C-alpha cells in the first residue's frame, strides 16, 4: 500500500516480478552468464545508485529478500510472478513456475503465479500445460517469443502450433497472456520485437487478454498502434517505468504517448524485480507530474486517479481481484 501525503491509500499490484536462480552452478553456458550480466547492467544503468546490487545478490536473492524488497519496503500489496524458463541457458531453468511457486505457497494472498508454455514443444507440451495448470492453478501465462529452443531462435503467436496452444490454454481457463516483446533476448530468424503477431492473436482470441510486456519497446510506436485497434491488448510498464529516474523527460514523452494511444485503463505498473525495485519506482512515479507542454500537446495527464489505475486497479480487473476483500485477507495474514 502506498500512502500519499494526504493519507490516501493506493493499492499496488506489481505485474511483473521474478525469483530467479542465475548462480554460476546453474549456468549452463556462456549465454547464461551473459544473460544475467545483461540484466545486471540494466539494473545499474537505470537505478539510483543506492539500489545497485552486488553480482552475488543479483545472481540469487531468494524468497525472503524478495518479500522484503517487494512487499515490505516496496509498497506492493500483490505481485505477479512471470516465469522465464531459459532452459538452454540454465541447468534447472532461470525462473520457472516451479521455482516461483515456492513464493506463492508462502504468501498465497499476495503472490499471483503465472505459468508458461512454448508451442515448439508440440504435442507433449500440450499435456504438460494441462498438468501445469492443474498443479499450480494458474490463470495466466508468460510467453517469450524470442526464446531459443533447439535450432529455433524464436516463434510467432500466429504460428499454427502457437494457435493450438492458445486454444488449449483458453480451454484450461487461462485468461491472461503476457507476451515478452522487449529487449534482452533476441531471436535470429525473425524480428521477434515485431508486435504484429499480437495484433492477429488478439483478434482471433477475443476472450483472452494480451499484456505486452515492456509496452513493446523497442517497438513502442507499433505497439501503440496495435493497442488502439484491439480492445484486449494491454501494456506492461516494466523497463519503461525505470526511465522515471534516469531520463524523466523521455519517461514523460513515453507516458504521454501511451496514455494518448493505449489509454489509462490498459496500462499495468511492473518493476521487473530483481532488475528494478518497486520502492523507488513507485516513489518516483507517484511524485512524477506530466510536464505542461506535453499535457497541452497531447491532452493527457497523469492524475492521481490515472496513477491509481496503473498501479493496481487495471491489473486487479484482469485478474479478477476484489481489492477490498483482498485487503482484508492480506491483513488477516
Amino acid at each position, binding site marked *: 500500500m502506498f500512502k500519499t501525503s494526504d493519507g490516501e491509500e493506493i493499492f499496488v499490484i506489481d505485474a511483473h516480478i521474478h525469483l530467479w536462480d542465475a548462480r554460476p552452478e546453474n549456468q549452463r553456458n556462456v549465454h547464461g552468464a551473459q544473460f544475467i550480466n545483461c540484466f545486471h547492467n540494466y539494473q545499474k544503468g537505470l537505478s539510483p545508485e543506492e539500489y545497485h546490487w552486488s553480482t552475488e545478490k543479483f545472481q540469487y536473492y531468494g524468497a525472503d529478500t524478495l518479500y522484503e524488497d517487494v512487499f515490505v519496503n516496496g509498497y506492493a500489496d500483490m505481485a505477479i510472478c512471470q516465469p522465464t524458463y531459459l532452459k538452454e541457458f540454465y541447468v534447472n531453468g532461470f525462473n520457472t513456475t516451479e521455482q516461483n511457486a515456492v513464493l506463492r505457497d508462502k504468501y498465497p494472498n499476495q503472490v499471483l503465479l503465472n505459468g508458461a508454455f512454448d508451442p515448439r514443444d508440440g504435442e507433449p507440451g500440450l499435456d504438460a500445460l494441462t498438468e501445469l495448470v492443474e498443479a499450480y492453478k494458474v490463470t495466466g501465462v508468460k510467453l517469450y517469443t524470442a526464446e531459443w529452443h533447439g535450432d529455433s531462435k524464436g516463434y510467432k503467436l500466429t504460428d499454427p502450433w502457437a494457435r493450438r496452444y492458445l486454444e488449449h490454454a483458453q480451454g484450461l481457463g487461462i485468461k491472461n497472456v503476457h507476451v515478452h516483446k522487449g*529487449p534482452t533476448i533476441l531471436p535470429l530468424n525473425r524480428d521477434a520485437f515485431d508486435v504484429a503477431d499480437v495484433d492477429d492473436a488478439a483478434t482471433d482470441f477475443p476472450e483472452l487478454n494480451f499484456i505486452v510486456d515492456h509496452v513493446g*519497446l523497442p517497438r513502442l510506436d507499433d505497439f501503440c498502434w496495435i493497442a488502439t485497434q484491439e480492445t484486449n491488448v494491454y501494456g506492461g510498464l516494466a523497463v519503461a517505468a525505470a*526511465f522515471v529516474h534516469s531520463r524523466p523527460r*523521455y519517461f514523460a*514523452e513515453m507516458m504521454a*504517448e501511451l496514455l*494518448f494511444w493505449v489509454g489509462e485503463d490498459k496500462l499495468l505498473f511492473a518493476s521487473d524485480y530483481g532488475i528494478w525495485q518497486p520502492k523507488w519506482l513507485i516513489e518516483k512515479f507517484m511524485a512524477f507530474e506530466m510536464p505542461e507542454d506535453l499535457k497541452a500537446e497531447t491532452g493527457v495527464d497523469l492524475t492521481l486517479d490515472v496513477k491509481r489505475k496503473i498501479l493496481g486497479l487495471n491489473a486487479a480487473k484482469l485478474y479478477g481481484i476484489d481489492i477490498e476483500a483482498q485487503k482484508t485477507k492480506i491483513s488477516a495474514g
Partner: protein
Amino acid sequence: MNAPAQQSSDQREANDQRESDVWARLATVSDPELDESVAAMGFVDTIQIDATGEVQIGFRLPTYWCAPNFAFLMAHDMREAVESLSWVSTAIISLRDHCNAKEINHGVGAGLSFGDTFPGQTAAELDKLRATFRRKAFKRRQELLLRHLKGADMTPQQLCAMHMGELATLPLEDDEALNLRARYQEIRGEFGGPAGEGDLAFTTDSGEMLTPDGFGDYLQDLRRVRVNAEFNANLCRGILQTRYGETAEE
C-alpha cells in the same frame, strides 16, 4: 600491426589524417533502428591502420544480445563505407562481446549475405528491414524539423505549402536547426514523392499532401516514431555506458 618506434611528423600527420577519414566515413553509417551513426553512439572503439592500407575496426554494442540482424547491417555498412576511401585496401570489421560475433565477423569478412552467414536459420534478407527503418527515420527527421519550425512561429498553413526551394533558403540561425534541416533534406528524396525545388517540402512518406486541418493529428502520429527511437537511443547509451564505462556523445 607493428608501428615503427619513431615516426616522422609527416607520417604522423598522414596517419592522423587517415584516421579522421575513417571516422568521417563511419559517421555516415547508422544504426538503422536508432537512425544515429555508429560513431556518435560510441559503438566503434578501435581503429587500426597499417602501411598497406588495411583498416581494422573494432566495435561492440550495449548488450550481448543486441539484434544480430542490425549488428550485421552495421558491420556490413561500415566495411562498405570505409572501403570506399581510395587508400583503403581492405576493412576488417570485428564485433566483440556479442552472441553472434563469430558468425557476423566471418560473414561480413567473406562478403556473405545475412542468409548465408546464418544458413538455415533465417528466412529473409535484410533489405526489407532496412527499408522499414529508413521509413521510420524519414518520419522522425520530418517530425523533428516540423516541430522546430512550428516552435519558431511558422503556421501549419505555411508549412503545408512550403516548397523544397523555400525550405533550403529559410534563414535558420542555430546549429540545431541547420542540422535538422540538413538531415531532413538528405532523406526527403527517398520518401514523400518528387523532391525538386518546386515540390512540396512536407508530404507524408507516401507523398500525400498535408492539410492545415489535419496537421495536428499528423504530427501526433509522427511523434510515436520519434519517441520510440529516442527512447531506444537513450536505453542503448545508458546500457553501453554501464557495460563499458564510457560515455557516448549526447
